[in-house]
C-alpha cells in the first residue's frame, strides 16, 4: 500500500514540475498577466483611489467582493470551530486546583463551582501549572501593549506600507493569545470574554457589508466607494481612500475577534475552564 502511495506522489509531483516549464519567466513583462490587467492597476490605482500601495487598492477596492467573502470565510471558520468544540455541559465530577500561596500547598477541591477564582490566600491554578513563571509573565506583560500598538499601526497604515486589516487583525489577536498563554485563560477571559470576541468579529463583518450597503443607498453599485463622497464631504477619489480605511478596520476587528475565539475554543477544548 505504501509503495502505491509513493508511486502516485512521485508521478503527480513530476507531472506538476513538468507543467511548471510552461509558466512564463519570473517577472516577464510580456506574460499575459502583465500585459493587460497589471498595467491598468499600475497606471490607474493612484488617480482612482489615491492609495500608494497598489496591493491594498486592489484588495480593498477593485477586488472588494473577494475580500468581503474572505472575511466571511474567516468568520465561518471561527463559527465552525465553536459549533464543533464548545461544550456547555458542566460535569459533576469537575474539580479545581487551588494553591495556598504562603505555603505552596496545592488543594484539589471537588464541586468548586461557587468558590472564587482568586483570593489573597488561595490562587486557582491549572493542572499544567508550573512554578517560577515570573519571567514569562513579566516579559509578555511588557511586550503585549507594543504588539497591540504595532497591530493598530499595521491596520491604519495599510495604504502606504505592506499590511492591512487582515495582518493587523491577526497580530492584534496574537497579542491576546500571548497574554492568555503567559498568564492563564481565566485572566484573559476577564479582559476579553468569549462574548466580546464574538461580538467584535460580527461587528467587523457588518462594518464591511455595511460600507457596501451605504454605497447602494447613495445610488451606485455595491462596494463602489466613490458615491460615499456625499456623506464624507470629499471628492470621490479621497472617498474611495477613506472607505478602504473603514473596510480595513472592519476586516481587522473580524479577524482579531475570530483569532481570539478560535484560541479560546481550541486551547480549552471548548470548556473554558483552563487553557494551555
Amino acid at each position, binding site marked *: 500500500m505504501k509503495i502505491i502511495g509513493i508511486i502516485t506522489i512521485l508521478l503527480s509531483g513530476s507531472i506538476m514540475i513538468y507543467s511548471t516549464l510552461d509558466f512564463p519567466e519570473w517577472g516577464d513583462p510580456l506574460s499575459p498577466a502583465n500585459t493587460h490587467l497589471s498595467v491598468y492597476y499600475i497606471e490607474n490605482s493612484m488617480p482612482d483611489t489615491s492609495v500608494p500601495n497598489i496591493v491594498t487598492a486592489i484588495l480593498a477596492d477593485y477586488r472588494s467582493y473577494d475580500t468581503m467573502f474572505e472575511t466571511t470565510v474567516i468568520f465561518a471558520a471561527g463559527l465552525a470551530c465553536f459549533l464543533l468544540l464548545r461544550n456547555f455541559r458542566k460535569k459533576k465530577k469537575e474539580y479545581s486546583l487551588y494553591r495556598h500561596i504562603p505555603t505552596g500547598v496545592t488543594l484539589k477541591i471537588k464541586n468548586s463551582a461557587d468558590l472564587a477564582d482568586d483570593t489573597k490566600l488561595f490562587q486557582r491554578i491549572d493542572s499544567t501549572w508550573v512554578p517560577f513563571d515570573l519571567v514569562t509573565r513579566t516579559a509578555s506583560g511588557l511586550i503585549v501593549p507594543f504588539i497591540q500598538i504595532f497591530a493598530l499601526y499595521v491596520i491604519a497604515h495599510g495604504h502606504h506600507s505592506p499590511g492591512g486589516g487582515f495582518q493587523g487583525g491577526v497580530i492584534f489577536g*496574537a497579542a491576546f493569545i500571548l497574554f492568555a498563554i503567559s498568564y492563564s485563560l481565566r485572566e484573559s477571559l476577564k479582559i476579553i470574554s468569549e462574548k466580546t470576541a464574538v461580538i467584535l468579529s460580527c461587528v467587523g463583518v457588518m462594518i464591511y457589508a455595511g460600507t457596501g450597503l451605504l454605497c447602494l443607498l447613495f445610488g451606485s453599485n455595491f462596494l463602489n466607494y466613490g458615491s460615499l463622497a456625499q456623506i464624507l464631504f470629499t471628492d470621490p477619489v479621497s472617498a474611495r481612500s477613506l472607505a478602504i480605511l473603514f473596510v480595513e478596520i472592519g476586516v481587522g476587528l473580524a479577524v482579531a475577534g475570530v483569532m481570539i475565539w478560535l*484560541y479560546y475554543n*481550541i*486551547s480549552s477544548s471548548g470548556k473554558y475552564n483552563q487553557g494551555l
Partner: protein
Amino acid sequence: MIWQIDVIILVMVIIIAIGVISIKNLLSVGILFGAYSFMMCLLWAIMGAVDVAFTEASVGAGVSTVFLIAAIFRTSRGSKD
C-alpha cells in the same frame, strides 16, 4: 534576487517538508510547520511580494503554529502511523 539565498531557502523548504511527514512526535511537527511557513515567508519577501510575506509570517508562522500546538496539547502527542 540573489540566487544563492534562493537555493538555500528552497533546499531548507524541502528538508523541512520531508521532516514534517517523517517525524512521529506531533509537537515537533507543529514547530516544523512554523519553520516551513517562515521559509515560505522569506521566499515571498525575496520575490518582492511583501504583503503576502507579511500575511504568511503573521498567520502561517505565528498564529497557526499556536493553534496546532494547542490542538496537539488537547489531543495526543504521538502519531499512530
